[in-house]
């Protein structure tokens, strides 16, 4: 059922995987620098990239720990909630790869936004598998290398405020959020969460406003949908990308 890939298609998929890996790996350097600026050691920074390996969660942890080590529990909770989407990607990736044993354990670790997106964007099963593995492994190597470089740079910089690294962290969250703001609902959720977080910040310990804001936004979204718009189909573009092609009948 899975014909061998032509040389041309193989090249196309590998080029796409390489461009995504380089672009994603490059911002590993900003993660490394921000993490050290937030007070983590070079080793702790590298272990986060090796073990956690999910950009949004890693930025969240160092963003919250920058407010003080007391934010540890909230940092873990935020990171874990951000990681829930990888679980859904795992469903699609496991169907696409159909592997077991150690390969499955490795595939699970490499299941992130970018590897899933490149994989499921390919119409043929062989190309999808190649795209997933090439992107996952490419990003893993570059992300960890660049994290280490960034951590050394951050270590050498000294006071993070002088270099604007605190603003860089805020901009990094903006850039991670940006591709997800593709519907009115997404904008509404984002605006409400931002508002609640800012209102709670003066009154709650570090990290708690972020968690509370996320729950408030989810509840409001749920209530709104239940009372006004129960039948409307939902279109999350990044989810669409992750869903397309992963249906069992959609691959040739």
């Amino acid at each position, binding site marked *: 059922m899975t014909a061998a890939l032509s040389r041309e298609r193989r090249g196309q998929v590998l080029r796409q995987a390489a461009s995504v890996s380089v672009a994603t790996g490059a911002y590993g350097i900003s993660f490394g620098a921000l993490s050290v600026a937030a*007070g983590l050691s070079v080793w*702790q920074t590298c*272990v*986060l990239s090796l073990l*956690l390996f*999910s950009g*949004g969660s890693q*930025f969240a*942890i160092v*963003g919250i*720990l920058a*407010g*003080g*080590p007391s934010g*540890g529990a909230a940092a*873990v909770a*935020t*990171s*874990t909630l951000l*990681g*829930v989407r*990888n*679980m*859904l*990607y*795992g*469903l699609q990736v496991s169907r696409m790869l159909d592997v077991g044993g150690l390969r*499955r354990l490795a595939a*699970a*670790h490499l*299941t992130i936004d970018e590897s899933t997106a490149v994989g499921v964007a390919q119409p043929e099963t062989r190309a999808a598998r190649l795209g997933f593995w090439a992107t996952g492994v490419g990003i893993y190597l570059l992300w960890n290398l660049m994290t280490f470089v960034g951590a050394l740079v951050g270590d050498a910089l000294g006071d993070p405020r*002088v270099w*604007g690294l*605190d*603003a*860089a962290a*805020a*901009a*990094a969250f*903006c*850039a*991670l959020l*940006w591709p997800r703001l593709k519907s009115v609902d*997404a904008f509404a*959720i*984002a605006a*409400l*969460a*931002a508002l609640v*977080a*800012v209102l709670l*910040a*003066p009154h709650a310990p*570090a990290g708690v406003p*972020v968690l509370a*804001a996320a729950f408030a936004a*989810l509840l409001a*979204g749920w209530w709104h949908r239940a009372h006004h718009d129960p039948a409307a189909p939902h279109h*999350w573009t990044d*989810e669409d990308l992750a869903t397309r092609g992963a249906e069992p009948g959609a691959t040739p």
Partner: protein
Amino acid sequence: MSTWTTVLLAGVLAYALKLLGHVVPARWLDGERTARVTSALPIALLAALVAVQTFTTSSGGLVLDARSVAVGVAIVALLLRAPFIVVVVLAAAVAAGLRAAGMG
């Protein structure tokens, strides 16, 4: 919780979630409601993180400073489809420049 505990616990939980997606029967996690919540979660969390990182001080107070300007510039860069690393470096440069000039 020590920083090492935070790092290791978050890492183990992140991997556990990824692995769960690979091993549980698909029907446990399929469904429109699950998909909706899992796509809304990162939006809400990231937006809250943007707000906190931009407008609050380390003691939790609200403030408009060099970071607000830097994030404004970052949003313009995103509108112009600048890549991630450019957005981040630009924001750092704006904030560092404003502070060097004695503003914010």
